[in-house]
């Protein structure tokens, strides 16, 4: 292989390295969490969406679903709304026939969401998977998607 070809090959390899380094970062998976006393073990993405849109009001075992949300502007909320609800982070969902927004409790950190879900039986929330501890149960994991 001539020196010219070698230089070209090295240039190509360098370009590939630069390109691979500049591909979008992968976001951390999101975990949908519920109280450990909740008998539900798994949920589908559409069911979670249906809950946050206010279409599902009660768990299959009967108790009321209590939604926990992150504040507008939180990256976690942005990803949850975009990938689960197919909506912008500040979109509101309304109870049909009313201008009353579907009620959810705002918590301002993963830890606060986990504490609330751990304390309130009918609660459901979303956090970064890395933040999850044994005080809550994970019922759905939104796998990594590129930013």
């Amino acid at each position, binding site marked *: 292989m001539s020196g010219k070809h070698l230089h070209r090959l090295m240039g190509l390899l360098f370009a590939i390295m630069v390109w691979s380094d500049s591909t979008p970062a992968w976001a951390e998976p999101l975990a949908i969490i519920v109280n450990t006393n909740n008998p539900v073990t798994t949920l589908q993405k559409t*069911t979670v969406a*249906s809950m946050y849109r206010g*279409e599902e*009001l*009660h768990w299959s075992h009967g*108790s009321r679903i209590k939604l926990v949300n992150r504040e507008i502007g939180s990256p976690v909320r942005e990803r949850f709304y975009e990938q689960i609800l197919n909506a912008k982070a*500040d979109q509101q969902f309304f109870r*049909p026939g009313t201008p*009353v927004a579907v009620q959810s409790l705002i918590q301002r950190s993963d830890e606060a969401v986990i504490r609330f879900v751990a*304390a309130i039986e009918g609660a459901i929330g979303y956090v970064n998977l890395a933040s999850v501890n044994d005080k809550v149960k994970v019922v759905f994991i939104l796998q990594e998607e590129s930013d």
Partner: protein
Amino acid sequence: MQCFNFHIGCRRHSKRSFTSSFARHTRIHLMLWAFAFSTIMMPSWEVAAQETRVEEAGPQAANREDAYAQEIQALKDRVEVLETQQNSILDDISQRVILGGYGAVEFESFGGSKTSFEGKLEVLIAGQIHDRIRFYNEIDLGIPEGEAQAEQAYVDLLIAKWINLRAGVVLVPFGKFNLDHFDPRRDLTDRPIVARQIVPTTWGDLGASLFGLIPWTPNLISTYEVAVINGLTDDFSSTTGGLRDARSSLSRDNNGQKSVVGRLTFKLADQYEVGVSGYRGASSDNDGKTITGFDVDLELKPRGVPFWEDFELKGELANFDIQGSSTPSRLFGLYTQVNYHFWPSFFDHTFLGEPYTHPTFTLVGRYDHARIATRAGTGNLTEDRFTVGLNYRPIENYVIKTEYQINNGGIERKSWNGFLASIAWLF
């Protein structure tokens, strides 16, 4: 320093005093070594002494640490209990009662009539009496009429996702516009003619309904509501023949027969919705004036689809036939509306954009048509309307709307063109 000089110079001492000198030097050397040894070793002795003291205090310190650990654990437990209590209270507050409202102030200027401001304020009170029982009240404070009235005031018994019971002053499930008539949610100030003269929105009535949601597939759901209500009266508008004045005004039924009304929707991925509604009921006591109506509505909000996600398309078509009536005998109307949401980035650093997360402009185009027919041979009343509007929403619950209407007909605005503007808010 002195010793050192002496030590260096000791070999230079005279022989006559060697013995005594030796003895003296030996003593001095011993003293020096002792001093050096003590200087070097002293810290070690001190450390050793300290260690001895720690070893002596060890059991006490360990006890103290245990006590601290227990105290910290107790505090942690207390904090956890308090957090649980706080979370329960937060949960209770957030779910129990919601107090809110919405308002609008409108300005209109049309040829043939005086310019005017109008307003509206409605109070919303909603909440849960129980996990399975919720209530909702929407009280129109009566601006500008001066008489407050319940637009909605009902209680829901939530039985299951697919079947629930509602009773009270219900929003009549006929057409999408009636169920989503709220000023801050709409993009134009004026309602379509079909939503005023044909379907008399805001249309509430005393009665009871069953409603629910049926999921067909994960992405396709249906909703339904079937209500039994007092129903429309035969108090048709003397000028237009429209049904606006035929609403029961929450008074006792003017006939003994109840009206049945319902709406069924199909919703795909929460983006595309088609609704079908039907109505049938007597309008007076004995003269057989039965009103039959149907309505088809459509709303397309593509999301996550490049380019098209900025557009919304909505429309509604309604028809009523009134058996045994000559004025009117048939009412028909439709509207179709396109919304385009946009936000030029050069507004980002202005007062319109800077303080808000997702401010939006919406360009709106709407076409309206209505026709009210009689069997008396007096001909049809028709009206066509084109509206172009632009609104600004810094947040979803506050909107400034402007629009221009071009009218042609004889029902509402006749052939007067005009300008409308309004501000609406929801809290």
